[in-house]
């Protein structure tokens, strides 16, 4: 199996989850109120009151066979809005 770690702005979260569901992800886990630093600079919780929001960390465990479709659904969102995605190996407990 594979594990995906996607980190995007909370503003795009709904869009990302819809894309994951459409691409056949069997499930996902979302951690909100996440901060960090990337190419787009530092993201803090300071602006959360304004609706701009912080980041969200989305974790997907899926079969290797499902990875291609998910990648195709997710990559354009990351490219247009920013955010990063990584894959690693995992097995069912």
């Amino acid at each position: 199996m594979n594990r995906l770690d996607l980190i995007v702005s909370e503003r795009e979260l709904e869009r990302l989850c819809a894309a994951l569901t459409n691409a056949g992800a069997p499930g996902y886990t979302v951690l909100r109120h996440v901060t960090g630093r990337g190419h787009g600079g530092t993201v803090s919780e300071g602006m959360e009151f304004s609706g701009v929001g912080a980041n969200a960390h989305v974790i997907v465990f899926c079969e290797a066979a499902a990875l291609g479709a998910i990648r195709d659904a997710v990559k354009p969102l990351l490219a247009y809005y920013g955010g990063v995605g990584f894959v690693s190996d995992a097995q069912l407990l």
Partner: protein
Amino acid sequence: MDSTLVLQNLLSPPVLFFGLGLLSVMLRSDLEIPSPLPKLFSLYLLLAIGLKGGLELQHSGLDRLVLLTIGAALAMALLVPITSFLLLRTRFDTYNAAALAAAYGSISAVTFITAETFLGSLAVPFDGFMVAALALMESPAIIIGLLLVRLTAPRGDNPELNWGSLLHEAFLNSSVLVLVGSLLIGVLSAAYSPAGMAKMSPFTDQLFYGALSFFLLDMGIVAGQRLRELRATGGFLIAFALLSPPVHAAVGLLVSLLLHLPQGDALLFMVLCASASYIAVPAAMRMTVPQANPSLYITSSLGLTFPFNIVVGIPLYMAAVQRLIPAA
């Protein structure tokens, strides 16, 4: 006279707490108002101001002056972003210029609320319908901003954007919804449930000043954090952030004179023109114009224009109002 007004504003609890927030960032204290407490206060302030505006609107009704004022507010919500865009486009690409223009064409509810509180401490009256003008000026600039991008950006750069989601973002974002919703609830309840409105008063009226002070403590922290990023902003934008408010306020004063607005309403109108959005517009731009750099429009509106208006702008505009408009 000016210096008295400035001092009186500067030494009021809300502005002093704003200063404490700024100071805590400068001194690198670990003071923070953890999320989502600032959201609690900002929702509360919008709800309270909407209800109070609705109550007064229900009492005053919609006469000719109200409609004229609201029309003038909408005209300013078109004029300010377009002229700002033309100016900003000389230094920024079309995305950043449009996002900045949208921020300055829209309004800051907290600046408006602070101005109302300032009028309250001077015992200068103002009308409830100004809250309607506030509510109506929030959205148009978001649409203008995106139209400017559409008209001036190279083709093929904007995938999947459609009018539906844009109008949705402009008119149904949470701050517009809470403000407009509370305004309408205020109008309805004032008419049909006056006892209910009376029981809201300890929550919406008596706590208001304290809640504003607490929220401005957080705004001071957030503005201070933004000020740290000033280097990335550049001299031109710093000048724009500090000079455009009095210019826009002056235009607002001119319009107020033409409309024969009384002192209080004139100040509020000027503040609507002079303030820039750091809530609805950045949230919308992040989504609809992701090519623009948020740290430009947030830093200038929140780190510079907002403190300028809160600390110096409001008493300055009031001094001009007192000079040109006779007290009622």
